[in-house]
């Protein structure tokens, strides 16, 4: 299945959106159903290689650092997605009559301002998926336009029971995600030019 759409985030610069969308902490908080999203080292693309139960336990109750605009842009840059980096995430989703939690490994396959690509493999007890996705940011008159696309292959129960509703579910998840991101980062005060400059500076350093 292929999805693509454009989402507009008003009142932010491309650099702010870029830094925010590169922040694993913000993604974890904005992605509906996401229980945690953490960097993992020395693993392949196969989620079976990772002990998700242990990661869930670690993540449970852990104090989350602040995200933009409260966070220090340097701190966010330090933890931002890295090209070839691998991340483990547990995402629950409700599709039709099934609501699996997918143990997922995300690989950032490309990250060059203002374009980022990621691939993912996820599995639950009765379903699994493979995903390639990407987004590119561009400046508009009143904010940023995010052009995103995703190609996914879904297997098992979700594919079987949920085909009719897969599109609306995907759209709902993506819209909630971007709205949530927008709600947070568009709080940036236009006057706080020093913040805006710091972000620009951080992003330009790469």
């Amino acid at each position, binding site marked *: 299945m292929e999805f693509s759409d454009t989402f507009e985030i008003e009142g932010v610069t491309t650099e702010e959106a870029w830094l925010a969308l590169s922040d694993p902490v913000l993604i974890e908080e904005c992605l509906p159903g996401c229980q945690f999203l953490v960097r993992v080292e020395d693993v392949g693309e196969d989620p079976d290689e990772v002990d998700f139960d242990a990661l869930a336990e670690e993540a449970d109750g852990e104090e989350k650092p602040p995200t933009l605009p409260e966070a220090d842009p340097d701190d966010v840059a330090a933890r931002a997605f890295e090209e070839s980096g691998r991340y483990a995430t547990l995402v629950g989703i409700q599709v039709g009559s099934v609501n699996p939690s997918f143990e997922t490994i995300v690989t950032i396959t490309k990250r060059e301002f203002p374009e980022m690509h990621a691939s993912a493999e996820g599995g639950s007890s009765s379903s699994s998926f493979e995903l390639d996705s990407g987004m590119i940011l561009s400046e508009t008159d009143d904010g940023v336009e995010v052009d995103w696309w995703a190609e996914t292959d879904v*297997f098992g129960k979700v*594919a079987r029971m949920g085909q*009719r509703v897969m599109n609306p579910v995907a759209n709902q998840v993506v819209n909630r995600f971007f709205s949530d991101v927008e709600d947070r980062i568009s709080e940036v005060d236009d006057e706080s030019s020093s913040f805006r400059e710091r972000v620009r500076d951080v992003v330009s350093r790469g």
Partner: protein
Amino acid sequence: MPVETVEAEDVRAGEFAGSAVKRREDPHLLTGEARYTDDVQYPRMAHLALLGSQYGHAEIGAIDTSAAEESEGVLAVYTHEDLTESGIDGTMPAADPENGVAVERPLLARERVRYQGQPVAAVVAEGRYDAFRALDLIEVEYDRLEAAPELEDALAEGAPRLHDAAEGNVCFESETGDEEATEEAFSDADHTVALTVANNRVIPTAMEPRAAVARYRKSEDALIVELSSQNPHSVQDRLSDVLDVPEHRVTVRVPDVGGGFGAKLQPYSGHLLSAWCAMALERPIKWQARRTDDFQSMVHARHQETEIEAALSAEGDLLGLRGHIDADLGGYATGGGVGIPQGTAAMLCGQYDVPAGHVSVRGVFTNTAPISAYRGAGRPEAAYVIERLGSACARELEIDPAEFRRRNFIPSKEFPVETALGRSYDSGDYEKTLDRALEIVGYDGFRQRQEAAREEEKYLGIGFSSYVEVCGGSSGDMEGGLVRMNPEGGVVVGTGTQDTGQGHATSFAQVVADELGVDYDAVEVIEGDTDRVPEGGGTAGSRSLPMGGGALREAAGRLVEKGRTIAAHQLEASEADIEFDDGEFRVRGVPDRTVTIEAVAEAAYSPGDLPEGVDAGMEETAFFTPEGSTAPFGTHVAIVEVDPDTGELGFERYVAVDDVGTQINPKLVEGQIKGGIAQGIGQAVYEEGRYDENANLATGSLQDYAMPKSWQLPEVDWESTETPSPNNPLGAKGVGEAGTIAAMPAVVNAAIDALSPFGVDDLDAPLSEETLWRAARGETR
């Protein structure tokens, strides 16, 4: 007009056959007394559930069952290894095609899965939901492989190979007819008409999903399996084979069955494993498939893609027929999967006198559920192809489609005939059913009416289907029939056929009551118990009445002969002078010297009253083998209206004139035809089993797979003619599948005719609104 039923007590003795006696099954089914397999309960009964593969094609690595084993209520979790360790080979019977390769069908997947839902592991638990919960805890290591869900994918260069033995995913190739003579016919032809026709995949959807309850009595080494089935003896045979238990230790019983339609002929992993688990755990085991289990892992049906071409004279006479069928077998070859498309090839002459024909068949593995029988099994596919081609020829040559058919019919004086593709038809009178159908539908005025409607932007279309099928057993087939008259005159009869809703008990009681001259209500009919009925072949291919009825008629006839010997002794007359009529033996010419068959039966159990050399008892078992198959036929005509703006299809009229030989119960015949039509319309308009490109079944529930609803079906104007079969003593032909075979081409031909003003000359079923809407816009799906 629908056939009106009569009460048995209003029928004169000896005239039950031919009367529309009310179904004796209905009070049982309608008052809640019916007992299906899931109603069967035993103390200490545990529940079996199967884990189906989540992928359409994958290698299987380790299977971790530890979490499932620890789950509440779980007694055991099994994989393929457990089966082989128990000493069985862990496979179930698979096809071994001529001109092809045989591949094993594992009970639980071994190393590789080849369709989504293929059983991978089994859980036995105290409660049904304990078992379902534990299924989710089994961890299977899958290594997903590229999948080939469509014929096109499987036949493509570089396609993923499903079975090592099957190069290019081809399981077998076969051909029928005379290629040379056919090529000659084509070189002499004035016209040729070619067509590519797809038979869409349908998923048999009986109201009752598959189910079994198995018990093992260790002290007697006896296995008793109760299951929803069409063929108890074949299940017994396969249980014995798969579990390596002698057949005489296996009893198979069939409770009430909520529909089979061909898909319940063979036992599946669930049935066989419930028996294996009952033996392994020494507890009664129930397996009740869920609806989605049936969608995913019961057989699917029909899917074939056919190239067909007719050679014609300038006047429109068929000179030859050639074609090729690519038949989808699914991930594994079943006997039906291999046999059905070859049957299709042999049936492609339809009702027509075709001097030369040649058809080749290729059976292809795909990453889909195995294909096998569904009501009609091979013959609906053929009727759809030849009847679509017939209408295409008529269109091309600008001949009226009814006239084209009439011109090419096999003349009634020619029967019995063998067609150019190698099928024998016993008897037929094709013009008669066509003519009557045209008369009922008012064909004379139709074209004018159609023209007038088009001017008002109403698009009517008429579709013809002049079908023939070959069914009702064959000269290589046998069925047992037991007729026993008890000392007090009651009659018990048993056959190896299996009712799944048809009304066997009613029909068989009619046949036997007439033969013995007893009351209809004196005859009890038993089926579905391998301990109590003689060996038989179950219910498939519309064989029950010709075969089971034939066997019972023969057994009853023998009983009458035995009775004649006893009566002659009682009446002190020569056997040659004893006449039998209406349940009484009479001395010829001496009307008051009579004895009833009941009195004869009583004597039969009193050895002192018997003539010398006559064994006691009043019981006969006949094993009936017919002279040949039966070939029912008829013409169905559909008039539909298609709205080009919405793609909606509505029925204006549906006329069916069928000839199924001598009718034992016209009401049951009518019911079979109409139910069959509903299923044919299902395939034509609604049903399509669909896999996505990753071999996920996209139509795995009744929300996604459209069955026809009662309000979507037309009233059927049904009439019949009777051309008896010479091949069985009843003169009956099979009726179970005729309606399904006939309906699909009638409906699709009608839709093509309706949309012909838009340049439409081809449509693929199912005729969804989208398909018709696009077709009216010159698009194909």
